[in-house]
């Protein structure tokens, strides 16, 4: 009995603006869950705070709408506690690359099996459209009293530097392509960052659906602004993670690709590598983790008697 898309939808009041790119991402997540056929009670979606961070309320799985900028550490704790569950984190670019960027960098160092989807719209939604860290310097959206004064960061390069083991970019109105990317990101064993270009028609009147839908002039004539990396025969995957030379080469390639100056916006998988996950590393330290997750470990017996013994430790302190 296959799970259908309706089963992953929650009908709680959705208050996103008409035309918001968030809708495309939400439905791509629904679709990815259908593709993956994960029972809904085996998924938990974390988010920060922002328009995009309301997403968990619209998915019929466990959902945790945390604090601004903190979705990743909340999700990390949850994943460590119960790695059997599929853990997703979602949220805005302000949330993930601004206030939360310290967690992003440090999450890359751990490689828990978490999929992090960032809704990149160049602005802060609920606080009326201030510039987010992805808005280029000099840009003035209609929500800004003056042109943006800070340089933008490059989220993919940042994730690469931070050590993310799967790095991709999608576009919210390309639901098909995005669904595939989400599926791949979830399937990846390790931390994946999926940056999604998401028009905010209310505050960002520059990076609109129309803008992304346009054709742009290139050397080979007019082409769609959105460029699919896989059509370019770009391969971001490290074949042999044990080969440091290949790793370094693929990283430079990924950096070059996401750093390139071009009119078109590449989407797809920029980098991928199989490295031991944090749970695997932890299990090297803590033998019991090889047999049971923290969530499975019994705490007490039927009478409430603690089941974790401290006798050996106590013995060491006996005088």
């Amino acid at each position, binding site marked *: 009995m296959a799970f259908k898309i309706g089963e992953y939808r*929650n009908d*709680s*009041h959705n208050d996103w603006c008409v035309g918001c790119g968030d809708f495309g991402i939400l439905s791509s997540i629904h679709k990815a869950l259908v593709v993956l056929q994960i*029972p*809904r*009670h*085996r998924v*938990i979606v*974390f988010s920060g705070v922002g328009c995009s961070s*309301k997403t*968990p*309320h619209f998915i*019929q*799985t*466990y*959902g*945790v*709408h*945390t*604090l601004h900028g*903190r979705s990743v*550490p*909340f999700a*990390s*704790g*949850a*994943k*460590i*506690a*119960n790695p*059997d*569950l599929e853990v997703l984190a979602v949220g805005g670019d302000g949330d993930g690359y601004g206030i939360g960027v*310290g*967690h992003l*960098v*440090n999450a890359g160092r751990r490689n828990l099996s978490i999929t992090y989807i960032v809704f990149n719209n160049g602005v802060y939604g609920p606080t009326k459209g201030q510039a987010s860290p992805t808005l280029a310097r000099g840009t003035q959206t209609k929500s800004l009293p003056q042109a943006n004064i800070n340089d933008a960061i490059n989220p993919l390069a940042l994730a690469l530097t931070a050590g993310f083991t799967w790095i991709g970019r999608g576009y919210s109105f390309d639901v098909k392509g995005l669904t595939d990317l989400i599926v791949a990101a979830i399937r990846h064993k390790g931390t994946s960052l999926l940056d999604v270009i998401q028009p905010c028609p209310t505050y960002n009147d520059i990076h609109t659906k129309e803008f992304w839908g346009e054709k742009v002039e290139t050397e080979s004539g007019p082409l769609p602004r959105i460029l699919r990396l896989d059509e370019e025969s770009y391969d971001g995957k490290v074949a042999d993670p044990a080969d440091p030379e290949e790793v370094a080469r693929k990283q430079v390639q990924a950096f070059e690709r996401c750093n390139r100056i071009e009119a078109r916006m590449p989407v797809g998988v920029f980098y991928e590598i199989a490295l031991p996950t944090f749970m695997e590393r*932890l299990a090297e*330290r*803590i033998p*019991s*983790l090889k047999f049971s997750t*923290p*969530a499975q*470990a*019994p*705490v*007490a017996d039927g*009478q*409430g*008697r*603690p*089941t*974790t013994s*401290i006798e*050996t*430790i*106590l013995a060491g*302190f*006996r*005088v």
Partner: protein
Amino acid sequence: MQQHLSWLIGGPQGSGVDSAATLFARVCGASGLWVFGQREYHSNIKGDHSYYQVRVADTPLRGPVGPIDVLATFERRTLLLHKEYLTSSGAVLFDPVLVKAGDLDGVKVAVEVPYAEFIEKVAAEFQKQVVRLQIIKNVLSVAATFGLLGLEFKILQEEIEKLFVGRRAKLAPMNVFAARTAYESTVERKPREFRFQLEPIAGAGERIFVNGVQAIGMGKILAGCKLQSYYPITPAADECDFLESHPESGVAVVQCEDEIAAMAMAIGGGVMGVRSSTSTSGPGFDLKTEAIGWAGMNEVPVVVFNYQRGGPATGLPTRHEQGDLSQAIHGGHGDFPRIVIAPADMEEYFVDGFQSFNLADRYQTPVIVLVDKALANSTVTIPRPETGKWRVDRGALASPEDLQGNRENGGQFRRFRITDDGISPRPFPGAEGGIFWCTGDEHDEFGHITEDPGNRDRMHAKRMRKEETALKEIPARDQVRFFGPESADLTFLTWGSPKGVLLEASELLRSEHGISANLLVVHLLRPFPSGLVTARLQAARRTICVEMNISGQFENLVRQCTGISIPHNIRKWNGRPMTVEEVVAAARAIQDHSQKRVVLHHGV
């Protein structure tokens, strides 16, 4: 006659003062004696002055004292800094090479320990370089003390051998040889005027010798804590280190990028139904403020240990203070329920390491445990806790029937059901039929955002009701603890670690000054047991509020919760724990001259 000895060893940080003191204390413990060890050090890695005071007696000890009976030194600074605290019959162990003219003025019993000579002997015997053996001075001072006290060498030898195990086992013979050399030489040279004598005692029962972080760590492990996220900070990091060095206990210890992440991770674990905690100190505790409020809003059981140290800001990072009470009670914007407890001695550190998780699960809210640097870094002999009687309480959980019933209806669960006692049964994510949402926004029973004013009225009140429930359910003996005669001249009121000195001070006040005193220690600080405290204070003749901070955070809390203004107080904020003697003196000043406030200043 009662046996009692106060021994102090000092030296540059990193020169092995700690291990010397620990060795001394363990040996005394192994002799059936009771020990209380207090460690003082600078916020520095190597070189600044640190010292360790070890009290030994034939009855349990509870806190530090000022006077020193034996001062063990191997450098000049320690001698100069501490000799003024020597009792009139106290002895100094000193290095004849380093002492200058006048250094020993006023010292009655000066015992020469020719460190250089001993070290040369050891070097010759084991064919080592003299410069590499300087660290051995520690063992030498301990052995010399042993000789002086007339304790049997065998026990010392055994403890040394226990100390050097594994990779370091090959060092045992050398250390034993060195110790024997110093021991025998001191036995020979023991001055007549030296009157102290420690005699091993038998039948003290099963006891352990632990410091605060170890006691807490064991309590946590026993409670089934499986996730401890943290960011390093003194002195809380020691607890994490302890947990990490016991991987067999199955606690996933995760070093995070900051305290915000550490708090968030622990809450994430709590959401999943795993007993989770984090430990920190003042600056880190501040950073957790926002996330703790989120846990309160989302009814997540999570345990936060805060190891208080001198504040504000970086303050005195390795010194003692009880300055984080206000933050623990009141920190965070808006109102949310929380449980704040403060264990007051080593036994309670152990118990609350365990019990805090029961409280968190039962009331589904953050539990903050206020401990402090003084006890965290004190090492004490206590009877082995009777853990066999302890029980785990996971609180209200969603029943299989409840879950089953929801499978049809989208599989979702009324996680935040409005109940009379404020507590709603919770499922663990992963359970079929248990789907719920959490959000920092005000929410309905499923956890979805709503700004409906009526829902807000009810949901906010439901959460806060849990504090009333807790106050009803938690046994009175876990709310406040009373010691001493029902009626007394003085009633001490305190929380946390001053308990120990106050108990000892009360003894002295009675026996030496004819003043009777009793003691009320508040263990549950939020929700505050106003009724129990009021009753005791109204029955008191003269109450003195005792705490380790400048502003009287506890005294203010008592006034806030009972309306009672305590007429007298004893406070200290110089970073060094209160000693028995200065509390006795302060209590006398208050009793005799009705002094309103006495500020204590003892300390090096």
